């Protein structure tokens, strides 16, 4: 199939009624959890994972993807109207968006966030369609050493960018690798770390692990403090930005889309990082940098465009290489594997319905989101008033139900509670769960690639530097680790992460 017939085929799949329904459900839930602080896309996707068991893989991924990019839209609403980010990737939007709202312009702030997100999402999908197939053909040349090197790079980038303490992040990744080895060794059939429990022979299921680490631990952290709510701006008029707003926001949207797209592709990068980068770029090149932080529309347009573009482009490493770049993609990989699909370079050829259908559905989803977020803004504002005390018991109940129905055994409930407590304590002690979940999902692939490479080379580590591709990946990983030890760069990285944390 050529490019255009593939795209047309994708739209035909996306417009099948069940895909439209689940796409709408996904973006609706995404917007909902984006608006409500306290439950992120990773937690929600893992809670809803069991629902996907009974539907086709294409429909399942369309719904889960919708939750992810829908959350980027919803997060901006809370950031602008309340000043408290609904999502980590909306932290930057709160800086200028809430100021605009306080100055009586919440409508244009919401409007430009939604239009910017729509434009960026659309551009990123075009980029994704154009870039993924050639990248997949390059990836066909990857053997076990190249895959091993790429996965190491992904883990290093994630730990480098997202954390205040690199050591703790690496430690979390190592713990994730150990957890990923639980169950039968797929090379020898030997049971590992199962403690005689037959329920653990297939390994730890990703759903109770992710629900515990992200969903339950978030609830436990939230209930011990009163969630601060700022002034909720509830009178929103004139959502359409003025001509002047468009003039000021056009180039920031374009630049935000571009930087978001490329940062999203990086394994370990993603939506949150792209918002910080695009905001700093706009502030630096602006003729009036003093307006930033006081209601500059470019300060809303650029990061909102960037986080949407990044949300779409972060699918590239997963769909072309089979390597999830962040924890959201790790959950998606888990969902694909449940359906017996291993994403990788051959996926576009073997499952064209899945690739082109999911990518085209993102376009459909973006249109749905625009309609959901602008005309229906009043509903979301009302939702912001629902107290957390009512929401969290319901979230907890849905999570418990979800954990049980996957395999129908109580062990998953204990695992979810256990990982919830573990995740809560980890966050208390300043350890982030994202590297753990990514390493957990990558662990079987990492182990296979490592063991196959060593068997092929009769134990020589030289095989990992035997091709330019793996040398390139490992050099980049090494440079990142070395640079993090340099005092000047280390300080810069820590300041960046600390700012993100304070603002969150």
């Amino acid at each position: 199939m050529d490019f255009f017939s593939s795209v047309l085929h994708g739209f035909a799949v996306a417009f099948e009624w069940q895909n439209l329904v689940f796409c709408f459900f996904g973006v609706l839930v995404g917007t909902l959890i984006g608006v409500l602080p306290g439950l992120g896309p990773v937690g929600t996707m893992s809670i809803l994972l069991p629902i996907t068991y009974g539907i086709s893989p294409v429909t399942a991924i369309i719904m889960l993807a919708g939750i992810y990019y829908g959350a980027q839209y919803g997060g901006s609403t809370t950031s602008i109207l309340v000043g408290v980010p609904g999502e980590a990737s909306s932290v930057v939007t709160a800086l200028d968006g809430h100021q605009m709202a306080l100055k009586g312009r919440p409508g244009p702030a919401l409007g430009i966030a939604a239009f910017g997100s729509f434009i960026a999402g659309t551009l990123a999908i075009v980029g994704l369609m154009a870039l993924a197939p050639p990248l997949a053909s390059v990836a066909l040349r990857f053997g076990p050493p190249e895959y091993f090197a790429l996965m190491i790079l992904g883990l290093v980038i994630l730990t480098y960018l997202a954390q205040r303490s690199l050591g703790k992040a690496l430690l979390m990744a190592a713990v994730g690798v150990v957890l990923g080895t639980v169950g039968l060794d797929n090379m020898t059939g030997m049971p590992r770390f199962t403690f005689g429990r037959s329920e653990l022979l297939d390994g730890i299921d990703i759903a109770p692990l992710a629900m515990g680490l992200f969903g339950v631990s978030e609830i436990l952290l939230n209930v011990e403090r009163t969630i601060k709510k700022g002034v909720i701006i509830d009178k929103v008029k004139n959502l359409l930005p003025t001509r002047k707003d468009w003039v000021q926001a056009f180039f920031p949207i374009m630049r935000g889309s571009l930087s978001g797209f490329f940062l999203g592709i990086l394994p370990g990068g993603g939506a949150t990082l792209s918002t910080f980068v695009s905001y700093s770029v706009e502030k630096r090149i602006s003729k009036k940098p003093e307006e930033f932080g006081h209601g500059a529309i470019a300060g809303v347009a650029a990061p909102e465009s960037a986080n949407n573009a990044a949300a779409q482009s972060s699918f590239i490493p997963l769909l072309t290489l089979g390597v999830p770049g962040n924890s959201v993609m790790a959950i998606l990989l888990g969902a694909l594997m449940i359906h017996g699909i291993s994403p990788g370079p051959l996926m576009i050829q073997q499952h064209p319905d899945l690739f082109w259908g999911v990518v085209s559905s993102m376009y459909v989803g973006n249109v749905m989101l625009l309609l959901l977020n602008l005309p229906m803004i009043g509903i979301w504002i009302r939702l912001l008033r629902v107290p957390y005390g009512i929401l969290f018991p319901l979230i907890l109940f849905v999570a418990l139900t979800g954990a049980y129905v996957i395999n129908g055994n109580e062990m998953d409930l204990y695992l979810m509670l256990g990982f919830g407590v573990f995740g809560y304590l980890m966050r208390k002690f300043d350890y982030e769960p994202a590297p753990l979940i990514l390493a957990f999902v990558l662990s079987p692939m990492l182990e296979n690639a490592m063991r196959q490479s060593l068997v092929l080379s009769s134990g020589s580590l030289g095989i990992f530097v035997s091709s330019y591709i793996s040398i390139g990946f490992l050099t980049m990983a090494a440079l990142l680790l070395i640079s993090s030890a340099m005092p000047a760069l280390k300080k810069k990285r820590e300041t960046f992460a600390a700012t993100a944390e304070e603002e969150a």
Partner: protein
Amino acid sequence: MNAERVGGFFWLLVGLASISGAISLGVGTMSEPDSGFMAFVAGVLIVVLALSICVKSYMSGPSERTRLSELWSGLQWWRPIAICLLVLAFILVFDWLGYFISSLLMLTVIMRWLEDQSWVFSIVVPVVVVTATWLLFSKVLMINLPSGIFGL
């Protein structure tokens, strides 16, 4: 007690446990890595990183140190404990009372006693939500949920 040090020693134990488990599984050789190889490599990494955290905790100045109790100071620390105990109780009675009754009880207890909602609210919301979920999974998706002694 220094929080970083406590964390460091905890991970040290986890790393050592991983190494010991890996050795009993069989680490193999470089040319023929066995089932415990990966867990061994990861365990060694955990031990090295945990040791570095412990060492750092001894070398850091008093201003950089966080005491264990400070992690919970000014917070309602008993609320997460109460929720965990309630969820544990839910799991323990899950088979005996069945999905419907145990879910209803858990939600009502959290909403009434932990969140101080009115009796009416704490009963009506759980009944509606649990019934809807039960119908969805049990009747629509035909998933077996424990019915317990009441057969619900």
